């Protein structure tokens, strides 16, 4: 099987890269083991954890993926992000060059750059939701942390009341108590009748409240459901994320995947790359579990296999490895430098990843690869958790790689 570009890993970075390459006229194949960490998304994207993100980015060390892209290109990509995603069928709300704020599932206030449809973002870290706030949960839904959220909003000056609604449609779900999860609820809420039941139930409770807070479990199959609910309720409604699975992340993943395929991209789902066939520093083809002895050939290869969670990187007690192709990885030999014993401090291992040059070309056995690129959390140099830059790095490095490949023509 021969393609212009083979993308290994179908998460946020892989899909953005694939869509951009298909739009540039390249025939792409995407090989992915399973679904990606978008399934655990907060429903928002982070650019950089600073009030002036672009300024902070310009001061980052040169090993950081943002530095390799360069401030000028970062600005250009940031300004184009909403258009790019909108053309792909995904609406993002936010200010391209700045940050907004959101309430996290644990009740903290954190920055966000872009918010997917169904999660509320604010333009201030101290949003005023009014004197009296009604937090509504679904009876039996354990993944919505109502007491943490109530405490957090309380510190901002709102008096919170927590109420549960019991809907007939959800009683069906509760036959299997451990399966009362966000996605199952969201599925039921994709139906008109369930939305109507919910809206009526909430209207009955919301008399005298300034704001209603609901878990962000709306819109699994399409955007717009949370807006419909808010309009039906009539009172100011805020949607705050629950624990995973992420309804917004799943919807976004599926939409991006559909877009990639409708642009002509081929998707090999549930398959894993097991080896690469090299000629010097050029990767000629890869072999996969399913395709067995039939290789996938491509002019260029893009590795977007993710970090430890997605098994793009593997950690042993002695080393960090890049799982699919054995590419060179940046990590300190001294294991004590990998982590901090205080769990909530900055953890260095999160920044480990594949070594790349400034064009995001990876290297193998010390030699830069001629046609193998990397993008997303598999890259070294970015600490997504401490810096709040996970999605930003994924999207921008993917765009940069796609553009670098198109430019090399």
């Amino acid at each position, binding site marked *: 099987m021969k393609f212009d570009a083979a993308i290994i890993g179908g998460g946020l970075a892989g899909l953005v890269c694939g869509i951009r390459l298909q739009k540039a006229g390249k025939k792409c194949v995407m090989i992915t083991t399973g679904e990606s960490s978008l399934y655990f998304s907060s429903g928002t994207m982070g650019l950089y954890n600073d009030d002036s993100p672009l300024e902070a980015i310009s001061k980052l060390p040169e090993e950081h993926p943002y530095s390799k892209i360069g401030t000028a290109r970062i600005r250009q990509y940031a300004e184009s992000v909403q258009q790019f995603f909108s053309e792909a069928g995904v609406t993002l709300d936010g200010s391209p060059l700045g940050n907004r704020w959101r309430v996290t599932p644990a009740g903290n206030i954190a920055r966000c750059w872009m918010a997917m449809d169904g999660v509320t973002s604010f333009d201030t870290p101290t949003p005023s939701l009014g004197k009296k706030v009604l937090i509504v949960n679904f009876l039996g839904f354990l993944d919505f942390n109502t007491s943490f959220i109530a405490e957090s909003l309380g510190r901002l000056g709102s008096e919170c009341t927590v109420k549960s609604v019991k809907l007939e449609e959800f009683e069906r779900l509760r036959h299997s108590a451990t399966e009362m999860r966000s996605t199952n609820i969201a599925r039921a809420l994709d139906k008109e009748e369930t939305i109507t039941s919910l809206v009526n139930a909430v209207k009955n409770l919301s008399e005298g409240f300034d704001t209603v807070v609901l878990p962000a479990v709306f819109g699994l199959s399409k955007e717009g459901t949370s807006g419909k609910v808010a309009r039906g309720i009539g009172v100011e409604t805020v949607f705050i994320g629950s624990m*995973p699975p992420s309804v917004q992340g799943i919807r976004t993943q599926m939409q991006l995947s559909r877009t990639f395929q409708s642009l002509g991209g081929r998707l090999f789902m549930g398959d894993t790359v097991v080896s690469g066939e090299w000629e010097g520093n050029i990767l000629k083809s890869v072999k996969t579990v399913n395709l067995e002895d039939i290789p996938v050939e491509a002019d260029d290869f893009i590795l977007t296999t993710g970090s430890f969670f997605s098994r793009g990187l593997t950690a042993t007690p002695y080393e960090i490895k890049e799982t699919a192709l054995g590419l060179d990885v940046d990590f300190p030999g001294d294991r004590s430098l990998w982590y901090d014993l205080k769990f909530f401090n900055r953890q260095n291992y999160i920044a480990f990843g594949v070594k790349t040059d400034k064009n995001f070309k990876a290297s193998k056995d010390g030699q830069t690869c001629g046609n193998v690129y990397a993008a997303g959390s598999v890259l070294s140099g970015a600490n997504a958790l401490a810096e709040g830059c996970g999605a930003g790095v994924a999207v921008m490095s993917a765009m940069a790689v796609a553009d670098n490949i198109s430019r090399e023509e």
Partner: protein
Amino acid sequence: MQEKNISKNNFEQCIKCTICTVYCPVVPVNPLYPGPKQAGPDGERYRLKKGLFYEDTLKYCLNCKRCEIACPSGVRIGDIIQSAKMNYAGGFPSVAGMMMASTDLMGGIATSFPRITNKVLATRPVKEVLHSVVGVDKHRTFPKYATETFEKWFRKNAEADQSRYSRQISYFHGCYANYNFPQLGKDFVAVMNALGYGINLLDGEKCCGVAMISNGMKRSAKSAARKNVKVIGKAVEDGREVVTVSTSCTLTLRDEYPHVLGVDNSSVRDHISLVEKFLYKAVTSGKTKLVFKKGFKAKVAYHCPCHQEKLGWGAFTTELLGMIPGLELTVLDSNCCGIAGTYGFKKANYESSQAIGKPLFDQIASVNPDYVACECETCKWQIEMSTGYNVKNPVSILAEALDLEETAKANF
């Protein structure tokens, strides 16, 4: 320190992310099914401690393997569920299940009296009895049985001719081609002969056992598996690759035997190939040439069966169909058809089956093809029963589109 996973079907690798449950086609339509995570690796933790934690609700699993395709951690969730059904269920499989899964027995009897059998099975009173007593839903019509099995036809009409081909393969025909639709087998022989391959039957092929596995018939399934591995082994020893036409047979022979039945097939697994993969390799490596009829025209919609998605070989089918000039191909969205073999025939599952397949049926109607292409015979029954569109196996499409005479000349 345990450095590698040692658990059966990788269940230790499960991080309980619930992605599998999002992907399961049953969960949105049947609230009684706990979902693959709980039925599979999550429940297995309890079942390993005490078998009494086994839940009867595992019977709602389609065995479509979509959970495995979605799993980022390499857990063979579908296999864990099927294994649990085999090992913990106890009691007897349903009459409906046993009847439909014993394809060699039923097929053998039915093809001895095909015309009467077909007539009787289609009558209302019998369908009512099948519905209320046996448990086969009355909306379902049993597929017709052939007047002559494929094997019988082959031995009478084609076997003698096969030795003149320089390249020889063995054909695992499966129950559908043998008992219900020998035309598929005939098309296979015609196409492969034109491409320069002589066909050999296996020395005692048994039903692959896919339906026995999902109906919990452990002993029958294992017995069939061992026999098949033996006869396939003989063909491989004689230097012949074994080619199949059904995606479910292929998945069962290659993967279900070791993962679910614990039957070792390592000596033969790599020599079992679905015809589309076999032909793709042969054509692209120049080993064989395809010459098509001028003026062949068809608007075709391709439905990739769930087991084909798991095999990951749908690309070979679409590539082959794409080689046919005059064939306008639409690849349908990935969606389970809902029948899952014998599953959808059972009255307890009829509504779920139809609900699962509905998006597929709707899309087929909106594409409005001349016919649907699909490698799986039970998908074929489901789509034909639920949409009224005809379904053709890609082998049969090739048989129609190829200029067999010119192809034979080109491959002489």
